[in-house]
């Protein structure tokens, strides 16, 4: 049936009026974003906590403006790949991954769909192949990397044992992060005038970590920033305690669990830092316009651990420390 012109004009006028009324007097409907979180090992749960806090502070409240897909932390590369396939099948708006291995896996998994990825932390995103350029990441990944501060950590360790002339550094020769750490440590050792005794250790968990491994005259033990050595910090701590020498780690939680000193990032902080980048991505800024940022490092000292080996921490070191652990954190049983 043919509509009469005046009736058509009337309907059109009504629709226009309704639209203008709606846009003028009613608010916009907010979209709920889906963020998938994939983690390798449970070492970075505090980072995730910081990330969620940062997102909430930026107005992306969980359950209202954002929904998280969080599988259990993967324990192997194969499991990581499986988790990525699972979460990507649900078409998330953003992927938050930590640490390096998860970022490498996420890059491979998002080659086709180009889902934006925020990583935190990654030790060296360029050498690990996550991004080619930290200023303008050319792919769909950006995030927070760690400062190249291994040399500075060596300096903080030596400030505890100023008379040490030799520092023992166990490392995994197959890990690129360890090699980068060694490079920084060697540069710093030259500036500080001390000797580094770097010893490769086997990847097997049966590889014995005993006093026999520690070279004669070593005044301290320095764990480079890589997974294998740090995963055996308790054995290294036992050896260090037996020898009465301090142990250094880049992780705050390990200092909280008895390691003498540490210098590195705080997980919740870099999580918040990553959340700020995530909000930019959700607002439509392409990852290539968001340069990779660098985490802030802090000094941690465990006075109880120092006392255990008879080490007197100088007042200067305490003044430099941002976290001083006086009582060891109680082990939590899952």
């Amino acid at each position, binding site marked *: 049936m043919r509509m009469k012109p005046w009736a058509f004009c009337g309907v059109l006028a009504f629709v226009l009026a309704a639209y203008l009324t709606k846009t*003028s007097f009613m608010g916009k409907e907010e979209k709920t974003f889906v963020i998938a979180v994939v983690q390798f090992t449970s070492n970075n749960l505090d980072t995730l906590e910081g990330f969620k806090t940062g997102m909430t502070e930026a107005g992306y409240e969980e359950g209202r403006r954002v929904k998280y897909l969080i599988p259990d932390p993967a324990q192997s590369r194969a499991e990581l790949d499986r988790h990525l396939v699972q979460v990507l099948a649900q078409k998330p708006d953003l992927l938050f991954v930590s640490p390096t291995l998860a970022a490498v896996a996420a890059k491979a998994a998002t080659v086709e769909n180009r889902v934006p990825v925020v990583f935190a932390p990654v030790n060296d995103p360029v050498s690990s192949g996550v991004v080619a350029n930290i*200023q303008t990441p050319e792919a769909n990944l950006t995030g927070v990397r760690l400062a190249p501060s291994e040399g*500075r950590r060596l300096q903080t360790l030596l400030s505890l044992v100023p008379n040490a002339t030799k520092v023992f550094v166990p490392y995994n020769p197959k890990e690129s992060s360890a090699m980068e750490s060694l490079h920084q440590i060697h540069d710093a050792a030259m*500036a500080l005038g001390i000797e580094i005794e770097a010893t490769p250790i086997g990847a097997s968990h049966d590889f014995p970590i005993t006093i026999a491994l520690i070279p004669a005259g070593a005044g301290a033990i320095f764990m480079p920033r890589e997974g294998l050595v740090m995963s055996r910090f308790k054995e290294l701590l036992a050896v260090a305690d037996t020898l009465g020498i301090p142990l250094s780690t880049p992780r705050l939680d390990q200092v909280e669990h008895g390691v003498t000193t540490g210098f590195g990032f705080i997980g919740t902080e870099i999580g918040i830092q990553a959340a700020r980048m995530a909000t930019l991505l959700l607002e439509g*800024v392409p990852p290539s316009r968001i340069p990779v940022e660098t985490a802030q490092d802090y000094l941690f000292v465990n006075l109880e651990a120092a006392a255990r080996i008879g080490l007197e921490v100088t007042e200067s070191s305490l003044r430099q420390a941002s976290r001083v652990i006086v009582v060891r954190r109680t082990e939590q049983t899952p």
Partner: protein
Amino acid sequence: MTRLRTLLNTIFLALALIPLLALGAILGLTLYKSQIDSAYQSAKALSTSVGIKAEDILGTIVTDVRSITRYKDFFSADPRVQRDLLMELLASVPSVLEITYAGPDGRQKIKVSGFKVYPLDDPQDLSARPEFAEALQSKSIACGPIETDPNIGEPLLPLAIALNDLVHGEVKAIMLCKVRLRVFLDLVQDYSQPPDVHVLITGLDNRILAATDFSQVLAGKHFSAANAPSLGSGLDGKPAVSVASTVEMGRHLLNAVAVISSHEALAPFYKSMRVYGIILILTLAAATLLAVLSRRRIVTPIQTLTDTAISIQAGELAAQAPGGAFYETKKLAEAFNSMTGQLVGTMNKLKEQIAGREKAQQELAASRERMDMALNAVSDGLWDWRLDTGEVYYSPRWFAMLGYQPEAFPSNYETWKNLIHPEDVSRTLEIVGEHLVSGEPFEAEFRMRTSDGGWKWILGRGQVMEKDAQGRALRILGTHMDITERKHADEFILESKARYRRIVENSADGIFLADLDGNIVDVNSASVRMLGYTRAELLDMNVADIDLNIPSSDFKQIWKISPDEQAQTIYTVHKCKNGTIKDVEVRACRFMESDNIFVLGLVRDVTERKITEEALKKSQNQLANAVKIAQLGHWELDIEEGKFTFSDSFYSIFRTSAEEMGGYVMSIEDYVNRFLHPDDRFMVYEEARKATTSIDLEYKCYFEHRFVTTDDKTGYLAVNYHIVKDSSGKTVKIYGVNQDITEAKNAAQALMAAKEAAEAATRAKSEFLANMSHEVRTPLNGVLGMLQLLQTTEQTDEQKEYVVRAIKSTSRLTRLLADILDISRIEAGKFQLIEEEFSLSALKESIHDLFMIAAKEKRIEFAFTIDPTAPPRLIGDETRVRQILFNLAGNAIKFTEHGSVRIHAAPLPSKGNQARILFTVRDTGIGISDEQLKDIFEPFVQAEESYTRKYQGAGLGLSIVRKLVKLQGGELAIDNTPGEGTLIYLSLPFKLPLAHEGQVGALRQPLLEAPNRPVRILFADDDEISLVSGKKLLEKSGYAVLTAKDGQEALHRLSEQDFDLILMDIQMPVMDGVAAAKAIRTQGPFAAKSTIPIIAMTAYAMVGDKEKFLAAGMDGYISKPVDMAELREVINRVRAKQSRSTS
């Protein structure tokens, strides 16, 4: 011409829109300006606030950095202390990444960083940096150009802070701080309200130093504020209001910028405009509504009346004009409608007349059409035969049926008769004739020729229609029907029946037909053959008579309810006429024929097949058992699908089942992740890759790898597989068998460990023996030396006897040592035979000389004779032959108290250059009993075994003899009578030398001319007793001897004096004998004496030691303990060789 409707619409719209549009424009412009001004004022206030906060932040940094001067001794402190203080400062000011402490001269003193380590002595010159110069000049602070740190990729603000003398105001130092621009991040985040309100900190060059989107900072973007109440370009290039305020620390350092997007700034304006738009649209709608209402009440009736008039003008007389709401329009419409009503009444009458006429014509046409259709519907041909006139009418269809044109033949009886097939004419005419008599309607089937020469079957029907008064037929009317197809169908059915009968009869399987009661109604020949009954016998039988499993009652029950033509397969047994029972497969079905129900069965004799199947089943069971016992599991890999298909036995290897794994198919990844040991996955992938890429069509492979069971146990698999390729050569499938070889592997590993342990024990034993030999021989050498020296002195007879006995004891000890080593070597498989030519008579002499004295002492007869036919020279290991005979002769003398010991050598028959010599050793001693005989060849066993043993010895002699004989390929036999003596047969193989080699032995021992002076010997040995005794013995033998205690001293002696020969011990302190010999042979200072003969005199007496020392450059070798006579012989031999080579 303007229409009334258009005029009214225009008037209403103009009245509504013009005032509204004018008012809207004026109000909108005013509101726009007001909002821009308001946004500008807000931005200005915001930027000012941010500027003040930024000044506070910078001020805090400056204050913190200047606080370093509170440490009174900072400037005079040790650099290490200064560094610690600066690091404390750095830790307390996290917004500063680096601090460089420099003197007023610009020389860097200390530099500390949050992530890097700088050496203390790194005297950089900072005076050229602009911020340094500016701070120094202003004695205050200064900012430098933004820098990006290459290590962390972050922009930094260089901030130079002058530290002044509090009293004099002079600049004492400049602290150059690298401020992380992130320090302003919290500030801008607090004041920004994205996405519409942004706050920035920019440098003097307008570079963005802090923004909520920190990437803009890292990317080095610039932004210049408009600083005017107007819309400029915002951060994202969209219109915005922006204002910059200065950040000053005594001087302009930075800018604080506030940017408010047009969206935010003009939000009230936009909202007002929307409200205005709504009002405008509603007004427009109201005006339109008024126009429409006016038109409906006034214009529409006039318009309708006009349209009605136009319609009537066009011929539509039924058109009626509506009255309208007004009087004038109503009356006008009534008059109009009255006129058109009369006109319409006249026209309707005319139309009715025309319609009646048309209806009559249509009925006539329909009648004609139906008649034509009836005629065409008759497919039979019609004929009408007037018997009285002979005329026949043939209808067109009659002709067309046979393919002829109508009227193709004359209309008479002959036409019909001539077209009938000759074979059918008489029968057809006979039927027609009978009809003429009976008068009953007739039917006859006959063939008629068609126009193309063929024949068609026709069914002719006819009946007399008229008769005369006598009852004779005058007219017959009939039809022809074409029944050719029906006739062909009947023939086909008959042929089919015959064919099926033949098939049934020729079928190899038995076929039977039975009714529901099981009574057999038909069978074929195969059934007859199969069962042995005749066909007639079978047709009298019931199915139950043959089938032993189905009674007739069951038969009916089964087939009564079975659906028609749905075949069932039954395996049963049939009894033959001769009583044999046959396994049969019956495939039967029920079918209806002429309202009767039958069962049709196809019977196949499967007796042979059943036997074969049972055999196959048995074989499969055996195979399954074998697979289970051998722990085999087979699998199939579909390469294209990437799927494994497994068997139950395969899963059982992994302690699981198909049920647990969700079926027999699994992806490659699942299989690898579930069952393969992680360390072997790469190896398995490589094997799979090799298989899939191999171009060998028969590629087969075997390899072993570890696996992990579902209960996390590790085992070993042996994998055998072969590949299948498609026509293009691409590998499509792999078939394989896995075998659990865990137990075998574990056993092999345990065996290997045991073997290694055994070998290690053997090595330890050999090393022990070597050390023991060396350590025993060294003191023994001293003992023997001293005894030999004692022999050279004046002694009483009693003393002589003691000395002789002592020397014998040492000899026996030496021999025992040699025997133990020999046993050890033989058991270790390291014993080596040396083949060289020797004289049989010389062998005889050496044995004879050795035992003659002992025999004389025991007052028994001793003889060694050689058969004259025996070859004089032989090739073999003379030393070992002598050792065998030495042991046998020694035993014979030892165990013989009276009578004789006789040795005889005689040749046995042999071929070519081979010789076999039979040695017999006969004694008249105590003999050996049969019980003892089986043990005496074992080590450490003697025939006489008691604590009061009469005969000495370790019991190794015969054991070695047996092993040596065996090693040389000889044989040993004992003929004995206890108490009457023993006869031992020993046969040994030798090679015969060639004739010209007969003189070689003669050349070995040249006679040396007696020297004019004593032979000068340098004797090196670290064992003092050996050195003293050896020196004395040599001197007593006529040699001039000088001693050395080690190799080094020997070299020293040699460099000072000339010697004819060196006796060199091997193991010595400072320098061993081998090193000393090498030095003599190779070093420059000894070049003139490098050829001096050197004899190794050592306690190293293991196999290979002699060769080792000779290879090290020595000319002779004698093992300790040294017999002086033997030593003299070696010295002579070496010197003879030396003289030959020099001459």
